[in-house]
């Protein structure tokens, strides 16, 4: 119009990328450093136990040097090596649990604070003085929780796997074992890592109800969003238990705790969808019902996280109903983001 030299509209895509960058700047510690530290602790524990093992062996005069361990590894059959690799991958995944647990806590509290902390310190007025829509703001937080945080956690997890393999290789090398054929078998490692990356969007879909609910509490609460997020579902559950309401509708109360409370508070646990659809893996394992699941001993990790199970979960109504509820929560969060400018107004 009257200032033709200046662009008068912002570029929506560019704005959204800057919003994501903003989240990263603020959350670097939780999104980037925390999973790295968790992985680092696991590597340190491994290193320490190796040192302890070595010193103990030396102190007690145990000498296995005369035995050529390398010959054992070279005489292993293909099948034995595959089994070993499979166990190794399962071990690596086991060592990754602290990283995933860290990611859960980081994302949980990130979401609770995402639309609340800036209202408490009034910096919301600075963000609102810029040409950014409330929808974009809320979506940038949802995308950070569903894609950014898990991607950085998976990167930390893969870095930890590599560090562990290097440590094991050095250890094996000290004992005269050639680590290459045993530890650095690319196919199972790569397929596990690719699977983990592919699972990010599946986890994200499954996590939508939790992400939406926590964002809604964060946008809605005038104080103590944590209390709102936890007390509302717990309180409802208690009321249901006392009034027998659910039983009259012939809904078992375990259904409420698993499908409502579990989904809106713990949906961001990576792989939470494992028990859903078809022969739910988790149900099969924890129920001790070994018939329902065939664990491939040559590929334990990939048989737990098999494409079959993933498609079972993707085809289940639980996942899509939850996702729809999550989108509803997010829409409500956008509404309250617009309404509430100050925590205590």
């Amino acid at each position: 119009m009257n200032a033709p030299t200046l662009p008068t509209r912002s570029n929506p895509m560019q704005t959204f990328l800057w919003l994501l960058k903003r989240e990263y700047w603020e959350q670097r510690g939780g999104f980037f450093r925390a999973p790295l530290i968790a992985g680092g602790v696991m590597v340190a524990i491994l290193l320490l136990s190796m040192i302890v093992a070595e010193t103990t062996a030396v102190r007690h005069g145990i000498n296995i040097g005369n035995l050529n361990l390398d010959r054992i590894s070279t005489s292993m059959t293909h099948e034995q090596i595959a089994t070993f690799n499979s166990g190794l991958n399962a071990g690596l995944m086991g060592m990754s649990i602290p990283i995933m647990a860290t990611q859960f806590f980081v994302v949980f509290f990130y979401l609770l604070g995402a639309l609340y902390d800036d209202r408490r310190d009034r910096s919301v007025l600075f963000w609102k003085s810029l040409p950014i829509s409330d929808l974009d703001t809320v979506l940038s937080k949802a995308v950070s929780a569903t894609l950014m945080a898990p991607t950085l956690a998976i990167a930390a997890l893969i870095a930890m796997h590599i560090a562990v393999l290097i440590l094991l290789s050095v250890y094996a090398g000290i004992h005269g074992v050639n680590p290459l054929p045993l530890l650095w078998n690319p196919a199972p490692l790569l397929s596990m890592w690719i699977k983990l990356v592919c699972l990010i969007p599946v986890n994200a879909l499954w996590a939508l109800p939790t992400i939406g609910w926590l964002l809604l509490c964060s946008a809605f609460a005038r104080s103590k969003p944590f209390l709102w997020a936890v007390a509302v579902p717990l309180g409802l559950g208690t009321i249901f238990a006392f009034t027998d309401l659910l039983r009259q509708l012939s809904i078992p109360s375990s259904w409420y705790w698993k499908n409502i409370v579990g989904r809106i508070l713990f949906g961001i646990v990576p792989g939470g969808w494992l028990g859903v659809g078809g022969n739910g893996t988790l149900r099969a394992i924890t129920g001790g019902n070994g018939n329902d699941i065939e664990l491939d001993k040559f590929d334990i990790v990939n048989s737990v996280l098999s494409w079959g199970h993933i498609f079972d979960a993707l085809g289940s109504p639980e996942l899509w109903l939850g996702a729809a509820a999550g989108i509803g929560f997010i829409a409500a969060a956008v509404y309250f983001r617009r309404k509430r400018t100050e925590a205590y107004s």
Partner: protein
Amino acid sequence: MNEASASSPQIVRARGLTRRYGTTVALDHVDLDIAAGRIVGLIGPNGAGKTTALKAILGLSEYDGELSVLGLDPRTQRSELMQQVCFIADVAVLPRWLRVGEAIDFVAGVHPRFSRERCLAFLARTKLQPKQRVRELSKGMIVQLHLALVMAIDAKLLVLDEPTLGLDILYRKEFYQNLLNDYFDEQKTILVTTHQVEEIEHILTDLIFIRNGKLIVNASMDEIGERYTEVMVGPDKIEAARALAPLNERQIFGKSIFLFDGVPQARLAELGELHKPSIADLFVATMKGTYA
């Protein structure tokens, strides 16, 4: 619509603007027109409705009545509005974790009217470093950063709500000096509220007094100068002065100073020496009994 707003230089137009909090009426059917190129001071005692009015204009709160800012509806067209409107809501609202350099990068990224060069030129005159976080800065430095960000945006309307609250006098002076010398021009409009009226007196072009949600004075500084006169009256003419229904009367050095509203200056000149009243004196006189 754009053509309309370009031809009529109306920046803010409000008719019957009302805002209730429960039973309290914070804004009571306010009519307000602000033209382009003005610096408007919105002055009122605590709880008079200043911040409520600004929040409505910025689309930060609900309201009843008609309101258009730059031809846009602040409630439904907020993000369009924020491309042309800027505000500093209060001191120290910048997020504490943000670094100076990140703040510049972010605003440059999302604001189409932001000029990085202008911002850096302004920051070069301060001690601010790109790596510093807001939480490491003093109150005055945070305001310098905020002002540098805002002044680098070529906005049509700048809204300042108590921008210098809690700052020492050096920062306060510098703030208004920068605003006037480096930012303001006839294309821009500034709406400012503050309790330190005497500090903005000389930069205002328009003055609005607000009390209990109503505008009780709304005039240009020229009109104010014509309308309100202070007279220093000797003891012999006090009765004559009181007969002209003064707005206020106070004593200094044994002389009485009367404030008149709308009495012809020729008439007042007979009573004694004429002065232009300060905004602070005018404010005190018009707000008498506010807290009673």
